């Protein structure tokens, strides 16, 4: 179970959020809302442990994640704005290196299968540089298919994807939640998500006249 208690984050001289409390347990999905610049990405990166919160803490199974970095990293997949793939490596190479570093090596065959399921058949051994934005995103997302980690943190996972890929990714997320996984995601798209428990969290506030 992931708990966030009394979290506050100040970037520069702006307070993005404060006194933030929520928790998420197995079989739940947290959908994070908020207008541009409301601190969604900052919150996700804080949960991952990439950003030190100004105040408060994030606990995984009751213990602060900053005191158990390695254990927490094993339980977590974070997919951020950047694709985190090397342009000069092929899809399978990228995937296998990422999984190896995550401590869960996969075979060449498994990597090919994952890419094929994401509709990249015939592109597995091309350098990622020549792929389109949407295809690069698919290579990144293929990690989800191979991961056994219970907690997924996804920052705008649907951007650049076409309709078919969006609905496939939704199924993947649904299955993960059904199987007792946890997902925290941000998305501006209105997407019907899962049959499981969905929690909503809104960040930021709008003044009158804001778009």
């Amino acid at each position, binding site marked *: 179970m992931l708990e966030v208690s009394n979290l506050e984050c100040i970037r520069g001289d702006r307070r993005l959020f404060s006194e933030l409390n929520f928790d998420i347990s197995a079989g739940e999905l947290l959908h994070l809302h908020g207008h541009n610049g409301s601190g969604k990405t900052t919150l996700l990166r804080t949960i*991952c*442990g*990439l*950003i*030190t919160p100004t105040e408060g803490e994030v606990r995984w199974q009751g213990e602060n994640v900053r005191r158990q970095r*390695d*254990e927490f*990293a*094993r339980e*977590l997949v*974070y997919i*951020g*704005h*950047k*694709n*985190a*793939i*090397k*342009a*000069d*490596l092929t899809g399978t*190479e990228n995937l296998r*290196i*990422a999984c*190896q*570093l*995550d*401590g869960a090596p996969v075979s060449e065959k498994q990597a090919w299968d994952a890419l094929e399921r994401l509709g990249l058949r015939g592109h597995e051994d091309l*350098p990622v540089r020549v792929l389109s934005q949407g295809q690069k995103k698919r290579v990144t997302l293929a990690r989800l298919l191979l991961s056994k980690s219970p907690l997924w943190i996804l920052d705008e996972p649907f951007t650049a994807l076409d309709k078919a890929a969006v609905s496939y990714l939704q199924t993947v997320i649904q299955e993960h939640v059904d199987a007792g996984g946890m997902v925290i995601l941000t998305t501006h798209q209105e997407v019907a998500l899962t049959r499981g428990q969905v929690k909503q969290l809104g960040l930021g506030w709008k003044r009158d006249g804001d778009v």
Partner: protein
Amino acid sequence: MFEIIRTIVMRDLTLAMRRRSDVMTTLFFFVIVVSLFPLGIGPELDTLRMIAPGVFWVAALLASMLALEKLFAADFEDGTLEQMLLTPQPVFVLVMAKVFAHWLITGVPLVLLSPLLGLQYDLAAETLGVLLLSLLLGTPTLSLIGAIGAALTLGLRGGGVLVSLLVLPLYIPVLIFGAGAVEANVSGLGETGHLLMLGAMLLLALVAAPVATSAALRISAE
């Protein structure tokens, strides 16, 4: 752990093989700087022999610094660096593997080429050996120290200039003992002491630098 080091080293070597021009720039820089001095000073053998140790070591220092930019910057840009920080692997191990790969790519070719370049300075065979050995011991230290600076200046504008200000002063001890070893051999004083000092500095850097670099990377990734 060795599996992880192997993965990172193979990854960076593969990337370097697919981007050969990046690798060659450092090496060519070294070759050209070292070759310019005999051309500029003229065929005065005594002078050349005298300046050789300093020229080689200063050129190696600058080449090593030039290469630092590429150590973490690409991984930082495309987001693979922050993914590395989120793996269950100790960050200093990842750093050590990356620095080792970086040294294999930018340091080793320079070390291997130095005896050949040394011929332009009319150095004796034995002195060429000492030059090679001193660079072999010194350049990994340069990469390790430089990694701290490279990590600290990640994502900053004008990071390249800043990194030289941060790192060059720290290179001075390596320069003194590296060039000192070659000089001592030329003058017949015996180079052992200098080489031992270089070895000691390498060990110290090996222990301390990856830890400092990991901390710097965490700060830069925020």
